C-alpha cells in the first residue's frame, strides 16, 4: 500500500487552478497509488467475459488486442443503438459548466478531468470523431479526437475515478447522468479485458457462492449463528433464524458485507432481533445471499446474471415476497433494473406487512420492499416497543447514500426510523443531504486500499459536512443505509473526523428495541456500555 498525505496536507493540497495545457494534452497519472489493480484473469475466465493476461496500468504498453480500435468502435456503436440515454447525452451537452464543481472527486482533487463535463468529454470527443459528420471533417476544431492507446489509459483512469453517484445529474439542465457515461465507458474497457480486481473478484465470487465475499453456505450459517450467540449474551434471547426454508412467507436478502465486516455485522444483528421480536415468518438464503450487485459496475449483462438469483430463489422457496436490507447500489438495481431484467415476478404476491397489514403498493411489480420502508411502517403503527434512551450516548446524523437518494428517493423513511430509535438527531447542511448528498468517495467498486488518496479526497465533502455537525452539535455517530458506506465511512471518518463512528440504522433499532422477555441490557450491540457519559462521571 502507498502512504498518503496527512489530512491537513491533503486539505491544503487542493488546488482549483486550471492547468495551462489543454486537457487533451495532459496524460493520466498512472503511477502506483493512482489506479485500481487490474483483475486476475481467472475471474474473467470464470465469468466467460473477455480475459486479459496479467498487466499493470503502470506499464507503458498495455498490450491491447490487435484489433482494439475496431472492438471499441463496434462496442460504442452497439451501445448507441441500445441506449437512447447515451446517444442523447453524447449530443446535447452545451458545456454550461453547472456540473463542474458538483463532483466530490473534483472538489477533493481539483483535477479538471473529474469535472463531470470533462469526464463525459473523454467519451464524447471519440464519439464525435467516429460518429458525427462535423467531427470527421473538422477534427479537433469540432472537439473530435482520434482514439489512441493513451485515450484508453485515460478512460481507465477516469472511469474508475467516478462513483456513479449521479449528483451532477441533479444540477444538469438536461439531466445528463455521468453514471450512465461511466457505465458505458467501463463496458467498453471491459471489451478489451480491462477490469479491476476489486469489482471483478466479488462478481466472480457472487456468481459461484451467491455473495461477493465468497462465503460458502455452511460458513454463512455459522456466521449468523455467531451473531445469535452475541444477541443471546446481550438480551438473553436465543434466536434461530432459518436458512433456505421452503414455504416461508418472506425471503430476506441483505448485502453480504453485513455478515462479515463491522459495523455492518451489528446492523445484521439488528435485523435478526427485529424479525424475532415481531415474529416474522422469513428465511435467509445461502444461494441468494448477496443484496449488492457489483455487476452494476461491470456491465448490464453481468448485472442481470447476478440479480437473477433473487427472483429464482424466491420462486424455488415459494415465498410471497422479498424484503431487502440496507444497501445503496443494491437498491438502484432493484428499483431501476431488476423487474425489467429478470421479471415479471408473477409468482410472488404484492408485499403486505404481516404485522400491520400495510400493503406496499409502491412495490406492486417487483414485490420487493426496503427494510427502512418496512420498519418505518412498524414504528408508525406502534408495533415496536422502543427505548430510544439506550442510544442516548449517540448524537446521530444521517448520510443519504447516493443510490437510495438519487435513484429511488428513499429519504424520509430512514429518518423516521432514526427519530423513532434515538433522541439526538441532527441534519447535516442542506446542500450535502437528500438529493444533494455526497458520496462516501468509495462507491461503484472503488472501495479498494490501493487508491486511498483518491478515496479520502472523494470523501472529503461528506466528511467536511460531518465535521460541521460534529463541531456544532457534538455529533459522534454517522448513520447510513449502505454496506459500502459501512465499509468506506469508518476509514474516512478516522482520517478526517476521528471522533465520529459509523452505524447502520438497524443497529440503532436493535439497541432501542425492547424485546419480549429480554434481560436488562448493560451493553449495546457492540458490547460497549449503554451509557458512556455516566461511566465517565462515575470515575
Amino acid at each position, binding site marked *: 500500500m502507498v502512504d498518503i498525505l496527512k489530512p491537513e496536507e491533503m486539505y491544503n493540497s487542493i488546488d482549483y487552478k486550471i492547468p495551462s495545457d489543454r486537457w487533451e494534452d495532459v496524460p493520466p497519472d498512472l503511477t502506483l497509488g493512482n489506479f485500481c489493480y487490474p483483475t486476475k484473469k481467472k475471474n474473467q475466465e470464470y465469468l466467460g467475459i473477455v480475459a486479459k493476461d496479467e498487466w499493470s496500468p503502470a506499464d507503458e504498453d498495455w498490450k491491447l488486442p490487435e484489433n482494439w480500435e475496431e472492438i471499441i468502435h463496434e462496442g460504442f456503436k452497439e451501445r448507441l443503438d441500445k441506449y437512447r440515454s447515451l446517444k442523447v447525452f453524447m449530443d446535447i451537452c452545451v458545456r454550461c459548466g453547472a456540473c463542474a464543481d458538483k463532483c466530490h472527486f473534483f472538489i477533493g482533487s481539483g483535477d479538471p478531468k473529474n469535472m463531470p463535463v470533462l469526464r463525459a468529454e473523454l467519451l464524447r470527443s471519440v464519439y464525435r470523431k467516429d460518429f458525427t459528420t462535423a467531427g470527421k471533417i473538422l477534427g479537433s476544431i469540432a472537439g473530435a479526437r482520434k482514439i489512441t492507446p493513451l485515450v484508453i489509459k485515460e478512460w481507465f483512469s477516469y472511469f474508475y475515478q467516478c462513483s456513479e453517484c449521479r449528483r451532477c445529474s441533479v444540477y444538469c439542465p438536461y439531466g445528463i447522468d455521468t453514471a450512465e457515461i461511466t457505465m458505458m465507458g467501463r463496458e467498453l474497457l471491459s471489451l478489451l479485458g480491462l477490469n479491476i480486481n476489486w469489482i471483478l473478484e466479488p462478481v466472480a465470487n457472487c456468481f459461484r457462492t451467491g455473495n461477493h465475499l465468497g462465503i460458502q453456505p455452511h460458513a454463512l450459517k455459522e456466521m449468523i449463528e455467531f451473531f445469535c450467540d452475541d444477541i443471546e449474551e446481550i438480551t438473553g434471547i436465543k434466536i434461530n433464524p432459518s436458512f433456505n426454508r421452503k414455504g416461508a412467507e418472506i425471503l430476506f436478502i441483505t448485502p453480504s458485507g453485513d455478515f462479515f465486516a463491522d459495523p455492518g455485522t451489528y446492523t445484521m444483528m439488528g435485523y435478526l432481533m427485529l424479525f424475532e421480536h415481531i415474529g416474522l415468518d422469513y428465511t435467509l438464503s445461502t444461494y441468494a445471499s448477496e443484496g449488492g450487485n457489483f455487476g452494476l459496475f461491470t456491465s448490464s449483462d453481468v448485472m442481470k446474471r447476478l440479480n437473477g438469483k433473487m427472483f429464482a430463489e424466491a420462486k424455488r422457496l415459494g415465498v410471497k415476497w422479498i424484503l431487502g436490507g440496507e444497501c445503496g447500489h443494491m437498491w438502484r438495481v432493484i428499483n431501476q433494473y431488476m423487474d425489467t431484467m429478470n421479471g415479471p415476478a408473477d409468482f410472488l404476491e404484492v408485499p403486505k406487512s404481516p404485522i400491520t397489514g400495510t400493503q406496499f403498493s409502491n412495490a406492486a411489480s417487483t414485490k420487493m420492499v426496503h427494510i427502512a420502508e418496512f420498519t418505518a411502517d412498524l414504528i408508525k403503527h406502534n408495533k415496536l416497543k422502543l427505548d430510544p434512551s439506550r442510544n442516548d450516548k449517540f448524537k446521530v446524523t444521517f448520510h443519504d447514500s447516493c443510490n437510495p437518494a438519487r435513484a429511488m428517493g428513499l429519504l424520509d423513511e430512514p429518518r423516521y426510523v432514526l427519530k423513532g430509535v434515538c433522541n439526538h438527531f441532527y441534519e447535516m447542511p442542506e446542500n450535502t443531504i437528500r*438529493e444533494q448528498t455526497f458520496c462516501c468517495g468509495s462507491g461503484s467498486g472503488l472501495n479498494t486500499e490501493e487508491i486511498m488518496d483518491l478515496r479520502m479526497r472523494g470523501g472529503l465533502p461528506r466528511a467536511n459536512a460531518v465535521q460541521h455537525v460534529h463541531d456544532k452539535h457534538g455529533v459522534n455517530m454517522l448513520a447510513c443505509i449502505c454496506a459500502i458506506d459501512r465499509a468506506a465511512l469508518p476509514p474516512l471518518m478516522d482520517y478526517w473526523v476521528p471522533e465520529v463512528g459509523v452505524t447502520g440504522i438497524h443497529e440503532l433499532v436493535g439497541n432501542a428495541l425492547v424485546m419480549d422477555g429480554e434481560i436488562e441490557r448493560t451493553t449495546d450491540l457492540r458490547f460497549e456500555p449503554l451509557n458512556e457519559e455516566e461511566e465517565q462521571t462515575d470515575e
Partner: protein
Amino acid sequence: MNVNYFYSLLAVVGLGSVAYVGAGVAGLQGVFGIFIPYLAVVIFISGFINRVMGWARSPVPFRIPTTCGQQKSLDWIQQNKIDNPSTLFGVIIRMFLEIVLFRSLFKNTRTEIVGDKIAYKWVVWLWLFAILFHYSFLAVVVRHLRFFLEPVPFFVTFLEQIDGILQVGLPGVFLSGITLLAGAVLLLLRRILIPKINYISIAADYFPLLLIIGIALTGLMMRYFTKVDVVKVKELTMGLATFHMGIPEGGLSGLFFVHLFFVCILAAYIPFSKLMHMGGVFLSPTRNLANNGRMKRHINPWNPEVKFHTYDEYEDDFREKMIEAGLPVEKE
C-alpha cells in the same frame, strides 16, 4: 488567444464577409435572398427530424430517472410529486418546469473552500443569463413572424407592445433585441473569463454564441442606425413565405444580407450541433420517466438471454457441506 474562439470568430467574420461581398458587392441577391434561405430551411427541418428520429430509434432499456425528492412509498410519507414523480402527470409538470423555467439550473451552487469548511453557495448568474438569452431569443423570433405572415397575428402585435413598453427612441426600442445581445455577450464572457468554463469549452461552444451576437448586432444596426427599408424586406420575406419569390426592385443593403445569411447558417447548423439540446431536453431518460420501476414493469426490447448460475449448479457445488451444516438440500 485561445484557438477555439479564434476559429469561431474567424468563421463568423468570414461568413459575414461572404454575404456582404456576395450579395452587396457582387449582386448575387437571388442566391443570398432566395436560394440559401430555402436551402437552410430544408436542412433545418430535415436535419432536425433526422436527429430526433435517430434518438428515438434507440430504445430506453431501463427506467433510470434521477430522483430529486421523496419517493412515493407509505401513505403517510409526503411524496415529492414533481421532483420524484410516480405518474405521467408528475413527469409532465417536472418537464414543464425544467423546460420553461430551467429549474435545475436555478438550483446551481458554487463550491468554495473557506478556511476549514467547504461551502456551497447558491449562484443565480448562469440561470439568469440563460433565461435572459433564451426568452429574448424567443421574443425576437416571434416578433419576426411579422415578416412572414399577413395579416400580422394578434400575438405578434401584442408581444411587440410589451417588448416596446419603454416607448423610447424612433423607431421604438424593442427590449428583446437588446437583451438578446446582452444575454449572448454575458454567456460568451462567462465562457472566456471563468477559467473552469474556458477550459471545457470547444470551438462549437463559441461559434453559435458569436453567430447569434452577429445576428443581433446586424439586426440592431438595421433597425436603429442604417434604417433598413422594412417594406422591401417584407416584400422579400412574404415572397419566400408564399412561394412568389423575387428580389424587390433596387435590391436590399449588404447589411441585410449579412443578417439573413447568419440566420440561415444558424438554422442549418442547429441539427448538427449542441443546439439540438432544444429537442434533446425532451428525450432525456433521467428526467422524462416516472420513478415507478417497482410499481410497473418497464420493458427492455433487447433484454438479453444470459447465463445464470442456477440453484442446482450451486447445490451440486456445495451439497456435502450443506448437508453437513444441516442446510436443506433438493437432492440428498
